[in-house]
C-alpha cells in the first residue's frame, strides 16, 4: 500500500477543490436551513445553475448571439457575462420556481419540490432532443469555457505546488476558491449579525411570531432561498471550472446530500460549521476512498469482498449512513447548539 498517496489524497480532501465547492454550497444551505429553516434538497440544481450559466454563456449562447445578431463579444467578455448569468440570473430563476409554490406551505413541501426541480433540470439538460442538445450538449456536457480563467493564472502549468499537491492550474483555482470562500463566509457572518439575519432566525424559531410582528416571512424566506442559491451557484461554477466541463451527472441529487452531510456534521446555524464540515467530510472520504483503492490494488482486500468499481459505491454508502446517524443521534453536529439548532420541527 502506498501510504504517501493516501496521505496526499487526505490533504487534497481537507483543503482542495472539492472542499471549496462543497463548503460554498454548504454555506448557502446553512443560510437556507441553518438560519431560515428551509428544507432545500435541491442545492445541486443551484450548483448546476452556476456551472451551466457560465458554460452555456461561453460555449453556446454567446457564440450563437454573436452569429445571429452580428455582435462581436470576445471570449473573455462572455466569461464575465457568464459569471453574472451563472451566479445571479439562473439561481434567482430557480429560487423563484422553487419558492413561489412552496414557501407558504409546510416545510416538507419545499423538500419535495426542490428535489423535483433538481431532477427536472438534470433530465432536461441531458436530453438528446436536438433543440435542447444544441444548447447543453446532452450527457457529454459543455467544455471550452474555462480558458479565460486559466489564462489569468500566474502559476506555471509545468510545476507542482504546495508539497506537490496541486498542478499550476489547480493551485490557481484553489487560491481563488479560498479567497471566494473567505469572502463568502464573511458576508454570511455580517448578514447574520444584521437586522435582516435576526429576522431570518426569528422565522426559523417561530414563523407565526415573526409574522405577527409585521415581518413578511414569505419575502424573507424567498430572499434567503435566493441568496443561499447564489452561494451554491458559485460553488458549482468552481466545480465546473475545475473539471473544465459542465456535465449533468456532476449535479445528481446525491450531490445535494453530500452538502447536507457537510452542513450537519459541522453544525447547522454556525458560520464556520459548513467550512469545517466540508473539510472533514472530504478529508475522510478521500482517505477512505484511496485507502480502499490501494487496499484493493495491493490485494490486501480480496477481490471477493470488493472490486475497484465498488470502492466508489462505498463512499456513497458511508455518506448515507453518516447522514442518517448524524440526524438521529447528533443533529446539532460538532459546533451546533442543541437548544438553538437541533433540526427542530417547523
Amino acid at each position: 500500500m502506498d501510504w504517501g498517496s493516501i496521505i496526499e489524497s487526505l490533504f487534497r480532501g481537507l483543503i482542495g477543490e472539492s472542499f471549496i465547492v462543497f463548503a460554498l454550497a454548504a454555506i448557502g444551505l446553512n443560510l437556507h436551513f441553518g438560519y431560515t429553516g428551509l428544507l432545500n434538497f435541491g442545492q445541486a440544481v443551484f450548483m448546476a445553475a452556476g456551472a451551466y450559466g457560465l458554460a452555456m454563456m461561453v460555449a453556446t449562447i454567446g457564440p450563437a448571439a454573436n452569429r445571429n445578431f452580428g455582435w462581436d463579444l470576445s471570449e473573455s467578455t462572455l466569461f464575465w457575462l457568464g459569471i453574472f448569468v451563472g451566479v445571479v440570473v439562473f439561481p434567482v430563476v430557480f429560487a423563484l420556481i422553487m419558492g413561489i409554490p412552496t414557501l407558504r406551505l409546510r416545510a416538507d413541501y419545499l423538500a419535495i419540490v426542490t428535489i423535483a426541480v433538481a431532477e427536472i433540470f438534470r433530465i432536461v439538460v441531458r436530453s438528446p432532443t436536438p433543440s435542447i442538445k444544441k444548447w447543453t450538449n446532452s450527457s457529454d456536457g459543455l467544455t471550452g469555457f474555462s480558458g479565460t480563467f486559466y489564462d489569468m493564472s500566474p502559476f506555471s502549468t509545468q510545476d507542482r505546488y504546495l508539497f506537490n499537491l496541486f498542478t499550476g492550474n489547480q493551485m490557481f483555482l484553489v487560491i481563488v476558491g479560498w479567497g471566494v470562500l473567505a469572502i463568502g463566509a464573511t458576508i454570511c457572518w455580517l448578514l447574520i449579525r444584521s437586522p435582516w439575519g435576526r429576522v431570518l432566525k426569528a422565522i426559523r424559531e417561530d414563523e407565526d411570531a415573526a409574522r405577527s410582528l409585521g415581518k413578511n416571512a414569505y419575502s424573507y424566506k424567498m430572499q434567503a432561498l435566493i441568496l443561499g442559491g447564489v452561494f451554491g451557484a458559485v460553488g458549482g461554477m468552481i466545480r465546473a471550472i475545475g473539471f473544465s466541463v459542465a456535465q449533468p451527472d456532476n449535479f445528481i441529487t446525491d450531490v445535494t446530500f453530500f452538502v447536507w452531510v457537510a452542513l450537519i456534521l459541522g453544525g447547522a446555524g454556525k458560520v464556520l460549521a459548513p467550512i469545517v464540515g466540508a473539510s472533514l467530510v472530504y478529508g475522510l472520504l478521500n482517505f477512505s476512498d484511496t485507502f480502499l483503492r490501494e487496499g484493493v490494488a495491493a490485494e490486501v482486500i480480496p477481490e471477493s469482498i470488493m472490486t475497484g468499481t465498488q470502492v466508489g459505491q462505498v463512499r456513497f454508502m458511508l455518506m448515507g449512513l453518516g447522514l442518517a446517524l448524524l440526524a438521529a443521534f447528533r443533529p446539532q453536529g460538532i459546533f451546533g447548539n442543541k437548544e438553538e439548532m437541533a433540526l427542530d420541527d417547523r
Partner: protein
Amino acid sequence: MISVLLRSLGEPSNGRATHISHQRPGRRPTWLTTLLGFVAAFVAILAVNGTAMAQNGEETVGGTMRAKDAAGEKIFVEGVEFSVVDVDGNEVGTATTDAEGVWLVELPGPGVYSVLLDTETLQGFELRNPDKNPLTGVEVQPSTNKNTLFPLGERVVGESNSIRAVQLFVDGIKLGMIIAMCAIGLSLIYGTTGLTNFAHGEMVTFGAMTAFVFHVTWQIDFLGTWMTSLAFGAVMAVLFAGIAGGLFNRFVWKPLRNRGASLISALVVSIGLSIFFRYVFLYQFGGRAGFYRDYRIGQQVEFFGLFTMLRKDIFIVVFSALVLVGIGAALSRTRVGKAMRAVSDNRDLAESSGIDVEQVIRYVWIVGSALAGLGGVLFGLTENINWEMGFRLLLLMFAGVTLGGLGTAYGALLGSIIAGVFIQMSTLIIPGDMKNVGALMALIIILLVRPQGLLGRAERIG
C-alpha cells in the same frame, strides 16, 4: 394556531408524553444498539458480496435489440433472427431474440466472426445503418462475451394522433396503478406518523430485487419448479418487503419517535437511509439492468383497433386493479383499515377514542412496505430492474400523492393514476425521454393552485 394543531397531528406531541412514561431508565443503550446494528449490517453487506449477474467462461457473441415505441419508450424487439459466420464462411450458430430482446450465440472458440441479421424478422423496424449488416470483423477474445450493436430506427408504421392518445392513455393507467400501489404506503406513513419517507422508493427496489433473486439468481427448486416462477418470487418480495417494513418501524422509526426526534430530523434520517440502501443495491447488483427470466408472453393483443397491449401488461392492469380495489375495500370496511384512516385523519382523536396508535402504525408500515414491494415487481416487469428504479419512482409517487392530497389514502390512489396518465400523455407534446418532467412540473403547478391536493381538506398548511 392551525400550524400548531397540524404539528400536533403529525408529531406525536401527547404521544411523546405517554411514551416517555413507558421508557426504561437506560435509554442510551437502545440507540447504541441500533447504531451497532447499523455498523454490523454494513460490515455484513461488504462481506457477503454476491455478484448477481455472473458470466460463463466461454466465448459468446450476442446483443440486445432495443427500439423506441410510439411513446418514445424503450422496448425490446422479440423474434429477430441472427446467424454467425466464421472467417471461412461456415455458419457456427443462429439465435433469435427473446422477449427481452436478448440473443446469444455460443462460439467454438476465440476469433473473428461476422454477424448477419435477418431483416425479414425485424417486426416493422428498420436498421439505422443497413450497410452494417452483416456486421463483419467481430473480434472475440478468449472467454468473453462480445456485444454487437444493431441500432434500430423508428418503427415504419405510422399512427394517427388520436389513436396514439388512446394508446398512451391505456399505458398511463397501467403506470398510474403501479405508482398508486407503491404510493399508498408513502401516503399512509405520512398520515399516521407525519414522516415524509424518502426511503420508500428503496422498498420498491428491494421488492423487485427480491423477486429477481428468487426468480433468476438462486432458482431454488427443492419443492418443485414452481419455486422458480415469478409468481413465487413476487410472493417472496411481498413477504420480505413487509418484514423489512416492520423491522424498520421497530428498530429505526419507533425508537426515533420515542426519543421525541423532530419530524425534520426523521426526514433527514430517511434520506440518509435512502442513499445508503440505494448504493447497497448498486454494490450488490451492479449498475446493469436486470430482467425477469422467461417472461415470454410477449404477444400483443389489439383492442377495438384502438390500442394494443402486451399480454403481461393486461395481466398487470387487471391484477393491480384487483389489488387496489381490495385495498380500498379494506380501508373502508375492516377495523384495521378504518383505524388507519382515523389515525391519519386525527391522531389525537383516534388515540383518545381507544385506538392503539402504535399498533396501527406498525400495520401501516408492514402493509405499505409490502405493497411497495409488490409494486416494485410489477414495475420491474414492465421496465427493468436496476438499483435506482425506486428512487426514480419515488418522485412520481410524490407527484401522485401530492396531487391527491398528502396523507389521504384514497387521494394517493386517485392522484397516482392521474399522474401516470399525465406522464404518458405528455409525450404527445414533449419528447419521450423527458416525460417525467411533465409529472414533476404538474406537481409544482398543483402546489400553486391547490396545495392541499384533490382530496385534501382545504386548510392552511403552513
